[in-house]
């Protein structure tokens, strides 16, 4: 059961978690990423490449399901203008085994960071606007899952 959503609206991570827990899998892991209000950040604008985004996320979810025995994968990624504290992304995995659920969840967020067509732009109190630079450490985190 793979469920991938790209949307401007917020989502209910608790309801997503409950749905995965209801699959009878024994183990459910989740990750939620939220906007941090660091350095006077007022808004984070998430741009995507719309024609590609859902397909890219479905591909990532499919790769996770091929590598680990998962009974469920949920990937939700927001786009548009988000304020501090807002949810950006949810990754949820269900499996019979805790290691599979935890590893697949970590894998998905690492690969989302480096392989999903989203770009972040930050706007600060003082009017400054800046694209978020990709981090080398994110590449390193993604690389540890290489086959």
């Amino acid at each position, binding site marked *: 059961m793979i469920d991938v959503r790209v949307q401007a609206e917020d989502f209910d991570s608790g309801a997503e978690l409950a749905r995965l827990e209801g699959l009878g899998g024994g183990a459910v892991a989740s990750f939620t*990423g939220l906007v941090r209000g660091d350095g006077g950040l007022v808004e984070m604008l*998430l741009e*995507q*490449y719309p*024609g*590609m985004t859902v*397909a*890219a996320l479905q591909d990532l979810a499919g790769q996770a399901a091929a590598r680990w025995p998962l009974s469920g994968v949920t990937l939700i*990624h927001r786009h548009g203008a988000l304020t501090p504290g807002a949810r*950006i*992304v949810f990754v949820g995995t269900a499996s019979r085994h805790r290691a599979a659920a935890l590893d697949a969840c970590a894998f998905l*967020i690492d690969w*989302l*960071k*480096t*392989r*999903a*067509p*989203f*770009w*972040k732009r930050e706007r600060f109190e003082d009017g400054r606007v800046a*694209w*978020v*630079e*990709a981090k080398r450490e994110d590449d390193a985190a993604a690389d540890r899952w290489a086959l």
Partner: protein
Amino acid sequence: MREAFGLDGEQVDPPAEVATLRDLLDWLATRGAGHAAALAQRDRLRAAIDQKFVPMETSIAGAREIAIFPPVTGG
């Protein structure tokens, strides 16, 4: 990229010796200062052909839509 190029997209008709994505980037970089600056850190860029991520060695023959990105920062 969009800001550096000063445009959202463009229709190009590269010469026949431009075979791969890497060739295309090299050729685009010759098309003006904005293009050259945008493509300076070429080894960090990623590309998609017809909305699928592909390596820079990929042939562009038959491609309808080619997208060139800076490194993604989602998640």
